[in-house]
């Protein structure tokens, strides 16, 4: 599968949030009015104006404290459930060169909630008028030979970006190294997404949507039969 990919090595992330700010700067997104809610994580969640968010979690594993950082963003799935659900290339489409999954202003005209519910990583966020937004892979930068803003700014090497094959090699090589110290280390959904995370602990400790549920991609593949599945999705959402 050609195109581009990210490799995000959480073992190197210091949670400086440089990626968050670089994202806002490149996309000229406004700051949200926030308060400290008893955590370093801010804003509280992704939003229509926040595409990139470092999630903070404290947990004790085998008697040792772990402060886990997860720089969350759209995974740019190889077979994006959002795109299939929307089924409207004017609203959601993929750049054939980079593989970036892109939302347009027309996304306000589709069934927004359905698209949100289809995402196994809980990424898309809607404006009040229903327009959807999320990470766009800095596709404008990438198509002009630049790195995504978040990758460009990362001072530790946690954020990496390049041709997909190159990133997969880097990810696997790095996993081998990290596993020597962190035997539970793994790559998250590397065969399904273009944003491949390396984590050292159980992914659920980082974020409940760190990995897609087992059935997510099976479901998404079946979205081809979406006339059959749509009522089911709605039903699930209704629960």
């Amino acid at each position, binding site marked *: 599968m050609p195109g581009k990919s990210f490799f995000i090595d959480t073992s190197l992330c210091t949670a400086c949030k440089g990626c968050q700010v670089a994202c806002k700067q490149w996309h000229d997104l406004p700051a949200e009015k926030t308060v400290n809610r008893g955590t370093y994580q801010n*804003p509280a969640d992704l939003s229509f104006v926040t595409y990139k968010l470092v999630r903070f979690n404290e947990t004790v594993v085998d008697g040792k404290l772990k402060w886990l950082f997860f720089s969350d963003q759209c995974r740019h799935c190889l077979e994006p459930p959002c795109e299939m659900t929307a089924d409207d290339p004017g609203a959601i489409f993929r750049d054939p060169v980079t593989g970036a999954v892109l939302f347009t202003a027309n996304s306000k005209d589709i069934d927004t909630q359905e698209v949100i519910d289809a995402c196994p990583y809980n990424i898309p966020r809607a404006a009040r008028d229903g327009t959807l937004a999320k990470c766009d892979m800095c596709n404008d930068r990438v198509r002009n030979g630049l790195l995504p803003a978040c990758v460009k700014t990362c001072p530790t090497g946690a954020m990496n970006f390049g041709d997909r094959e190159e990133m997969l090699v880097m990810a696997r090589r790095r996993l081998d190294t990290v596993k020597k110290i962190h035997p539970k280390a793994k790559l998250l959904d590397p065969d399904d997404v273009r944003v491949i995370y390396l984590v050292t602990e159980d992914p659920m400790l980082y974020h409940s949507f760190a990995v897609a549920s087992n059935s997510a991609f099976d479901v998404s593949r079946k979205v081809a039969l979406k006339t059959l599945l749509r009522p089911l999705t709605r039903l699930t959402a209704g629960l």
Partner: protein
Amino acid sequence: MRSGTDIAFLGGMIKYILDNKLYNKEYVANYTNAGFIVGEDFKFKDGLFSGYDAKNRKYDKSKWAFDMDANGVPKMDISLNNSRCVFQLLENHFSRYNTMLVSSITGTPEVDLLEVYKTYAATGARGKAGTIMYAMGWTQHTVGVQNIRTMAMIQLLLGNMGVAGGGVNALRGESNVQGSTDHCLLWHIWPGYLKTPRASNVSLDAYNKKWTPKSNDPLSANWWRNYPKYSVSLLKSFFGEKAAKANDFGYDWLPKVDDGTDYSWLTIFDKMYKDAVKGFFAWGQNPACSGANSNKTRKAMAKLDWMVNVNLFDNETGSFWKGPGMNPSTIKTEVFMLPACVSVEKEGSITNSGRWMQWRYQGPKPLGNSVSDGDIIMELGNKIKEVYKESGVFPEPILNLKWDYMTDGLYDPHKAAKEINGYFLKDVTVKDKSFKKGTLVPSFAYLQDDGSTSSANWLYCNSYTENGNMAARRSKKDAPNNIGLYPEFAWCWPVNRRIIYNRASVDPKGQPWDKKDWVIRFAGDVKDGKYVSKKWIGDVPDGGWYPLENPDGTKRKDAKYPFIMRKHGQGQLFGPGRADGPFPEHYEPLESPLENNLMSKQQMNPVAPVYTTDTDSVASNSPEFPVVGTTYRVSEHWQTGLMTRPQPWLLELQPQVFVEMSEELAKEKSIKNGERVKVASARGSLECTAIVTKRFKPFKIAGKIVHEVGIPWHFGWRWPESGAEESANLLTPSTGDPNTRIPESKAFMVNITKL
């Protein structure tokens, strides 16, 4: 570990290293003063070194002198067996620092102490290296200098100084702290770490005599023996042609500081508070938030007649008169704001922690009516000169000051950089080399004490030469040892030496301890087991002398010890120049949770400065303030937040000042995560948002539970608009290290209450 107990923690490591013989014996014996014999006057009892004067809170350091032989060279026993040698005294001093006691003081469990000690001490093996990178917090204690010294001693014991991947590395609080210190930001030093003259240094000759160290050991390079060359070259740089031998090169025109008095930050604000200071330039700083005991600082500024605030934006300092608790109608201070441009809008250099002077070009032009610091100071100088031309008491220093660093009416950083490097002021021949008047001096080895050279900072001589601006170089070619020195990228003082004291990276025969990642190696010719020609390769060696020994093990008389800036040429395990003792000792902070120091009868550093105004309340071992407090930074804000708090994207990330505490303390106080609380010390209080976290844990100290909390100090009332996010320095005390007077803002006592 509990804040303020680093010496106990590291002292335990010294004991561990000595007990288990994990030190590099050859390094310690040859390159440190471990073998020096200390005089009989040196004693240590009940937490005090000999020579203590309780009335003046001062030591008589002459009691700590080394025993000298007939030639005036320290007596040595490099077998390290003499009971009065430094090594034996060191072992004895730290014998008290057992893990049980250290654990009881620091709160670190013994098993964790041992794991750290074992891991780190393993770097003492020959060919291994360990480095320590510390942040400014380590210096902000009443034992700040001794904190760093304890680590430096560990590095000496393990042979980790001067080697690749070794050293004690300060991570500065700002990108150019090294540069500003090199160029005399501090009151007690002139550029290049020359001493600010004391009133008792009545002439240039007296000044040079006082501050030029003497060594009678032919093996000691004693580099500071060159002191007069550097001081005279500096005076020539200050006063140009007006400085002549007949007038002591203008020495009399320079201000002298009173003997025994200090002019440090803490003392300046103490004097200001006592109405003894009339005017104040707050240049690129925000003391209303950054200084310890901010309430005192803010009240002190209300006693000024005038203040000039040079900064990018208005801040809590320039607007102190309308801050919390201030009544503008009763404040006489007139504040002038001079808008300065930001670093990227000007050309010039910064010097990083690794001493790399890096030239930076101008990016965007300055915004609005802001100008560079260089332009502000040049114009100020010109105006002051104009005023003094008309009249003025003692006008010579001002009128004779050479002030020619402008081109076309603007400050010219190249002219300043060249002046810092220095010029030949006449045609001279030095060491068989001839130099033309007006050319740049190639290296400080050519500076003279006869007025024929200038240099505004001898350490930077070699940075801007006839070959160009060395700091602007950007070659990515590595040195032959391939350890990442990149000798042609920027420039490093001294003389582009990338690792200082690198002659300690080789054994006495000049061959590297570490064969793989070596810094320098001696490659001179050998004949009959003796070196017969001089050649070092790798980094610029710390002096090109022969190694101490020949390949056949015979000692050489033309060699030098590696620590060339030290009088005796040795790394100082015993440091008799420090205000608070030649060995580090654990003392409790000014404010401690303990009634008694567990290490000795001496509760706090006996020579730490104490200030006594009504704003200097102290509460140690007090039930009113039972919780240890410390301050720190977060990556989202910078310094007092002047450049980050008004930035919406950054304020979004860290919108409010917070206090971090353990789940246990929160439970005890019924505080919920995210709730606003009040944190108070004996001096002030502020509102914070509680972050209840597993990252803080109660300590078991001296058998009781002690809690600690931490607060970032980046905030201030001026922004965000709510005015509710204040500086953590409202809590910190006006005391500090007796050597540097850096405030003790990292360990103090507080209480926390629900709002």
